[in-house]
């Protein structure tokens, strides 16, 4: 079980809670986690990463244990604290005022 914390706009859009729990097959990666989030919550397609290129939207960041994973290749295995559900993957809208 993998825990993911979504930004307010997105959990409201998806009609869920701030923290969601998902399962992915095999070794979890950012790509697999995002695939599963989009499969379970279709309104989130295109809001975290581009529909076609799958590139992260510019003002979205990913954090694990306080470390910035935004620029890691999407197929990088996620650490055990994520795979085990010990800590959540945080998806955050960049601080940009407004």
């Amino acid at each position, binding site marked *: 079980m993998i825990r993911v914390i979504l*930004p*307010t*706009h*997105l959990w*409201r*859009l998806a009609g869920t809670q701030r923290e969601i729990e998902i399962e992915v097959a095999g070794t979890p990666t950012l790509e697999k986690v995002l695939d599963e989030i989009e499969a379970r919550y*279709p*309104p989130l*397609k*295109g*809001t*975290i990463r581009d*529909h*076609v290129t799958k590139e992260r*939207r510019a*003002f*979205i960041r990913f954090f694990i244990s306080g470390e910035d994973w935004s620029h890691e290749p999407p197929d990088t295995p996620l650490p055990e604290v994520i795979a085990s559900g010990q800590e959540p993957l945080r998806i955050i*809208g*960049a601080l*940009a005022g*407004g």
Partner: protein
Amino acid sequence: MSKVRVLVGTKKGGFILTSDEERKQWDVQGPLFAGWEVYHMQASPANPDRLYAAPSTGWFGQVIQRSDDGGKTWEPVGNEFVYDGETGTHQWYDGTQHPWDFTRVWVLEPSPSDPDTLFAGVEDAALFKSTDGGTTWQELPALREAKGHLWQPGAGGMCLHKIVLDPGNPDRIFTAISAAGAFRSDDGGQSWKPVTNGLKSEWELPDATAEVGHCVHNIALHPSRPDVLYMQKHWDVMRSDDAGDNWYEVSGNLPSDFGFPIAVHAHEPETIYVIPIKSDSEHYPPEGKLRVYRSRTGGNEWEALTNGLPQENCFHNILRTAMAVDTLDSCGIYFGTTGGQVYASADSGDHWMPIVSDLPKVLSVEVQVVP
């Protein structure tokens, strides 16, 4: 008794303002999609309870929301706007070429006859169509072939901000793009041509009468006379009597011919409305007086409408999509300001009152009469 719904898009969500035909007491619903920039909300003429909204943010991109119960509940539908084929480049502010890039939906225009068919105008400028209630979107790419490489962004971005469907001819579509101009299709969007002859932009363009590049802020027509178009350009209020083939200026005695919205009275095709703004850098009413100007002669002769509007120290702007008219016998006029007020007149502009005074910055105002 009919009901009037005013659909207001703001910088931080959408609002629905509801009244009866008297239009004196208003119920305010919202914010819908709180925190999202709602560039536009629009109702289907074919099904008054079918509403569409276009919320977006710089963080999370574009969403399209749809309601089938007049805005009580909403569901997100398709938000995949992918340009058709090779997008190429357009002109950037400095004259260099810049890749076409989707940013947001500026305007939604539902079909007059089918609630599941609608068009979307987007930034970077392009026209999309959905025939399944907004679930999927396909671009009509021929528009970008109308010298798209010479289009350039206005201050708000390179946006397709106005779609006008000829109510009597489904093959005829007009679009307006800043800063590219006005365009017309006579075959349902399969081919397009600029309709800009007569426009002059001597302060903005190196060639003042260029075919494309004009910063058209809005266009409007009356359904009974679809060949007569009115335009608020960056500067100049313009009119065409031949579906855009030729334009002539009708700014007349306006205190400033800069502005954003333009609207036509619901029952008087020669009665039109603009809201003059001081200049392209001073986006507020001249002299701090918020005045709607009405012409009953199709332009040139204008009268100031001030009753109920602030006549001192008003320094808000009224954006291009933020004025609308209803179709009740006594035509209602509505507009929203960047200061968060929505003003209404239930008597063609003679008297005004604020419906709400403290919304976020108003981006768009539409109105529908619900039987």
